[in-house]
């Protein structure tokens, strides 16, 4: 005996899905067009913002989140949220290296500075690696 046809067939439907597809295709055109302009460091932000709008449209309408119980949406949002935490703290580390220096250790004033050879960001080009195995016959 069907127990869920009442609630589920009234949701969604070909009209909404087709409208969603056109919205997504339109946004794709927008994002490709936007890429031909240079907004500097905002390039990545704009691209990801448009991508996120597309992702939200896929999630809400194709994946039915707008008609489902909220627990499903909470689950996937949690996934993105914790991914965001991972990204944010890693970027915090990587973008602030060489930043804060300790100030409470007077001996630092007389310490030998870290030589450039030991600083991977300023090192000289590394020694040649072993040749790649089974290298192709001709190189460009």
């Amino acid at each position, binding site marked *: 005996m069907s127990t869920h046809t009442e609630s589920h067939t009234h949701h969604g439907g070909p009209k909404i899905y087709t409208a969603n597809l056109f919205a997504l295709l339109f946004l794709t055109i927008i994002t490709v067009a936007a890429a031909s302009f240079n907004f500097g460091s905002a390039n990545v932000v704009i691209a990801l913002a448009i991508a996120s709008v597309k992702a939200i449209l896929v999630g809400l309408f194709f994946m039915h989140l707008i008609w489902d119980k909220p*627990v499903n949406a909470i689950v996937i949002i*949690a*996934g993105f949220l*914790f991914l965001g*935490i*991972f990204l944010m*703290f*890693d970027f*915090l*580390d*990587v*973008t*602030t*290296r*060489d*930043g*804060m*220096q*300790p100030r409470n250790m007077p001996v630092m004033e007389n310490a030998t500075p870290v030589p450039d050879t030991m600083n*991977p960001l300023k090192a000289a080009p*590394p020694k040649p*690696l072993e040749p790649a195995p089974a290298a192709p016959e001709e190189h460009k």
Partner: protein
Amino acid sequence: MEPAVTSGARIGDRPRPKKNYLNETKGFKSWALTVDHKRIGIMYLVGTMIAFLLGGIFALLVRLTLLTPQHTMFGIQVTAETYNRFFTLHGAIMVFLFIIPSIPGSVTNFVLPLMIGAKDVAFPRINLASFYLWVVGAIMAVASMVIGAVDTGWTFYTPYSTSGTSSTVTLMTAAVFVLGFSSIFTGLNFIATVHKLRAPGMGWFDMPLFVWGMYSTAVIQVLATPVLGITLVLLMMERVFRIGIFDSRIGGDPVLFQHFFWFYSHPAVYIMILPGLAIISELIPTFSRKTMFGYRAIAYSSVSLALLSFIVWGHHMFVAGQSQLATVVFSALTFLVAIPSGVKVFNWLTTMYKGNISLEAPMLYAISFLMLFAIGGLTGIFLGTLSTDVHLTDTYFVVAHFHYVMMGSTVTAFIGGLHYWWPKMTGRMYSEKWARWAAVLWFIGFNATFLPQFILGSRGMPRRYYNYLDQFQPLHAFSTVGSWIIGLSLFMSAAYLLASLRKPMDAPDNPWGGTTMEWQTSSPPITHNFEEAPVLEHEPYDYRPKAVAH
């Protein structure tokens, strides 16, 4: 022990059902292809106990090597490479094959559906799949040990693991990858079960606190383990194809590996401790015969621990080359994560205060837990504080800290829970006298092994070293003897628990006077768990005196 509560089922008066989940169907296939959460729980119990034994043997080998400063064992020289393998295998087996899968796979699998009045978990076939994934991962891990045992430490730090060692890193990381999926499936199953299969009338705040703890564990399993998966894939790619992400000689960043690794592995240690905390939340009210004080506080603290565990991983990397700012931020956040643990301990103590306490073996383990977890948790603060961590990191202080929380807390709780639910799972009572002696020996042996290690660490003894200065020998020797006492206690426990299986099945439905739903069914339960649908009639842990008969 008169049960203090009544329910729709008559406890004690009811005749024991002839068929239960153990004897209803027989034969290898009925176990190998079972989808009954109780049978899967038993299989997980057997498997993880074997892993515990294997990991324990490596632990004994480590301690034997450290009995003398010259790394000899029974007169034979232990080489550095061999010692590296000893502690790596001890760590990897214990973490991935034992601690993470054991409580969720065995105790929780068995008890959780009973506690919420369900017939099974949400996805029984996925439950079986998660067990077989564990088996495959275990076989791969053992194979990697036999072929060329890993020597990188269980943390697989690069660049040694990608370019320095010739041991079977790839096979072991593949094994851990498989084990990770076993963990994910288990967590996924429990989340769906708790959301959807609670008995009618059981709201979230009517559930036992064990369920809250296991739900929180499951959230971490689902959200953190995939990052371990991709970390291991990247490690294998770096090792085999030299893609240039973790090895600085080819343009990578070794600290990046540590970020990837610890983003999972710190929440993982909460996968290890939360089930232990969940078990204690069951033992304390039952053996204090008192309503749990601060039910909501404990429930919320379980969830907060799960969520906060995701934002502190950098405290494993204070001296690794992380930026100063990140270090400071992670240290501050680490202090936050200690708060929910404290909330739990205070609520448990308040529950016990003026309670009618009885000191059966499960309660002895629970009381041990309170003391050992206090020490483990507080020493974590020493390590979270930057100025002290600079001196204590990578010393035996860290080793002692994590053994106090992983072994002194989680394993203690596990053993206590095993005793508590033993009659429910097997239908037999174990020998209470032997059990109490083993519990006392466990407490003595554990402290003898690990308390000296705090001192060793603060005096400068580094971890993962196979030799040491002569002045450290007395403490090391004391610690090694302690490890033998632990072994004796565990051997005793195994012996009397297994011996109990030869007795007839005569355990009562509710030997301890527990108030949660699993005690409303027979010991052991029938295959479908409840003969009549269980009805929730009272608040959780309601030990108020009330009129008995129905």
